[in-house]
């Protein structure tokens, strides 16, 4: 589904990713771990197509197509979803209105009929129930006045409604207490499926107790310095990044 080869990327003049190789197949969950400043969030932004994150070398193919050439909205419509580390507030726009606009933009892109208000509400209610999302979150302005937990849960709610193929979860556990973490993880797990892949970017192993990855990669200095199965995460938890980062 996703193939990253020798990816180099910079922000402004600063080179951040320095030769990433990674292949993700449908159904797989990959965890990207690493210390602060290792390039984890940059990788998410580069894949999602954020302005200012420039690919300087290497290639990324997604479902056989060159991803780098596409704009952010096109990538989203093609099924790439980024759950933000810091979800953005949009005052005056209700969460449900925003999400319906997004759903319909994506449906239009795929040549499907747009959902009317009733059709959307039905879909949204279904997903909200699945994630135990309070009903009022749908009607409040996007992320405005949401608690940290509500914001993260809302990201997973958007993901559930948009049904992407490739999910990028950027530090989805940051700022969550243990109960909120469990709720979010349950939501993510309920969205795991044989044709959906996930890349979970996290600083701590904690999240991976709940979202169990197929592969774990350690990112340091803009490169993947070590890959392994879920036990690698446990090992890191016990021993720290020290040795790997120094390498």
């Amino acid at each position, binding site marked *: 589904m996703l193939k990253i080869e020798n990816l180099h990327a910079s922000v402004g003049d600063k080179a951040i990713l320095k030769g990433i190789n990674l292949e993700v197949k449908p159904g797989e969950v990959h965890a990207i771990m690493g210390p602060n400043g290792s390039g984890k969030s940059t990788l998410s932004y580069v894949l999602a197509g954020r302005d200012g994150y420039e690919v300087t070398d290497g290639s990324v193919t997604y479902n056989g197509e060159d991803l780098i050439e596409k*704009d952010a909205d096109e990538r*989203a419509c093609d099924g790439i979803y980024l759950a933000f580390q810091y979800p953005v507030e*949009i005052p005056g726009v209700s969460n449900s209105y925003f999400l319906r606009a*997004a759903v319909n*933009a*994506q449906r239009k892109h795929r040549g499907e009929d747009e959902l009317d208000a009733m059709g959307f509400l039905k879909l949204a209610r279904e997903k909200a129930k699945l994630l135990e999302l309070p009903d009022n979150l749908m009607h409040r302005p996007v992320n405005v006045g949401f608690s940290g937990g509500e914001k993260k849960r809302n990201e997973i709610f958007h993901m559930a409604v948009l049904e992407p193929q490739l999910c990028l979860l950027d530090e989805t556990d940051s700022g969550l207490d243990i109960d909120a973490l469990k709720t979010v993880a349950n939501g993510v797990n309920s969205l795991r499926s044989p044709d959906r892949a996930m890349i979970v970017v996290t600083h701590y192993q904690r999240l991976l107790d709940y979202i169990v990855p197929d592969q774990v990669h350690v990112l340091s200095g803009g490169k993947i310095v070590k890959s392994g199965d879920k036990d690698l995460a446990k090992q890191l938890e016990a021993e720290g990044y020290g040795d790997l980062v120094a390498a």
Partner: protein
Amino acid sequence: MEELDRKPKTSDDDHVDELLNRDYEAGFVTDIESESLPPGLDEGVIREISKRKEEPEFMLEFRLNAYRDWLKMTEPEWAHVNYEKVDYQSISYFSAPKLNDGPKSLDEVDPELLATYEKLGISLKEQEVLAGVQGAPKVAVDAVFDSVSVATTFKETLNEAGVIFCPISEACREHPELVQKYLGTVVPTSDNFFAALNSAVFSDGSFVYIPEGVRCPMELSTYFRINAANTGQFERTIIIADKGSYVSYLEGCTAPMRDENQLHAAVVELVALDDAEIKYSTVQNWYPGDENGKGGIYNFVTKRADCRGVNSKVSWTQVETGSAITWKYPSCILTGDNSVGEFYSVAVTNKRQEADTGTKMIHVGKNTRSTVISKGISAGRSNNSYRGLIKILPNAEGARNYTQCDSLLMGDQCGAHTFPYIEGKNPTAQVEHEATTSKISEDQLFYCLQRGLSEEDAVGLIVNGFCKEVMKNLPMEFAVEAQKLLGISLEGSVG
């Protein structure tokens, strides 16, 4: 008195320039033979206008007095706008489509005119209304087309309620006592340069009278439109809400593309008597000019309400996206005790548009209250100024005002300016002013794109969210239109 100049800095200007291009959708000219007077203005022209409109004697006097006032006045220059001065002798002050007796059904209306409505995007629903189709929604349309109203619908329903809604020229003939009693009492002929000119030469407009205790059974709606070349439009609108009555009035505008700048100097007078309420909503989409600002409409309007009665209320809601130059301050004189004035405004400027707009709230009576919510959006190389005056007179015990003034900037070549004036002459009054300036953040934009929205849709969504407090005050069908308009006006102005 303070001025806050705000100019943001971004790096992404090429992108902005590249996207800042969109042709005006309503740019077309309708070929209907006009019976125009030759250009120029003197007392003879005014007598001719009055004669052609078969006006009573007091109207001619009113016009001539205004003309004499106007001759002594000079064009105001204090507004934060720049434009080439208008040559008032090159304008034709009267132009009317040829129609006999006025149409009784749609069949009698010039098909060209109907085609014009269609191009203007007047909804099918509203065309049905215009056509008087059975079961059509009850929105009366009084269309001003080149200075003369050509269609007035739902007169019967309104008649039953005792509501008068007709072209002002008709009101001059059929209800002279009402016109004489109220004309010029809110905006005197000598009020300002443009109001004086309007008073001298106004061609047509709407007249509304809601009798005591009547809640107007439908929203009253007028589509203004400028058509014949070099014909300045000088509408005059008077709305009187008698004791305990209520009316909601909608005004929407658009104009065809032109090379010469077109002058528009309307006067709107509202009078609310005891316990009466008037809601006046405007969605304005006049041709703003090309990317160099050439050819756009000059909109110099005087709109004022007098809350004459106790407990009366007037609420102005406006969404302004058009015109090359806008000079407009819908105001309320809160004369009656406990009267309420409200002003909700969205002003969008793009390309080279310049808007100097705002409101005046004059607190005269006791416990008078006013609310001002102004949302200015600037894009391209435009300038958007808010100018507001809150004046508390000595007798206005317990008067209160709340003003909120927010600016949204797109790109780094536009300007947003705020000129708030507060004059408090009563120590018990409370006046609050809040102001913010923001930009559409790159974070917000990326968040929307990442969900699959196009850049244009994302900007539309964020801007509509910014304006929500104002939009929610518009009647439903108008709000939808206004939302679309915001999207169109700002298309391609991501900064």
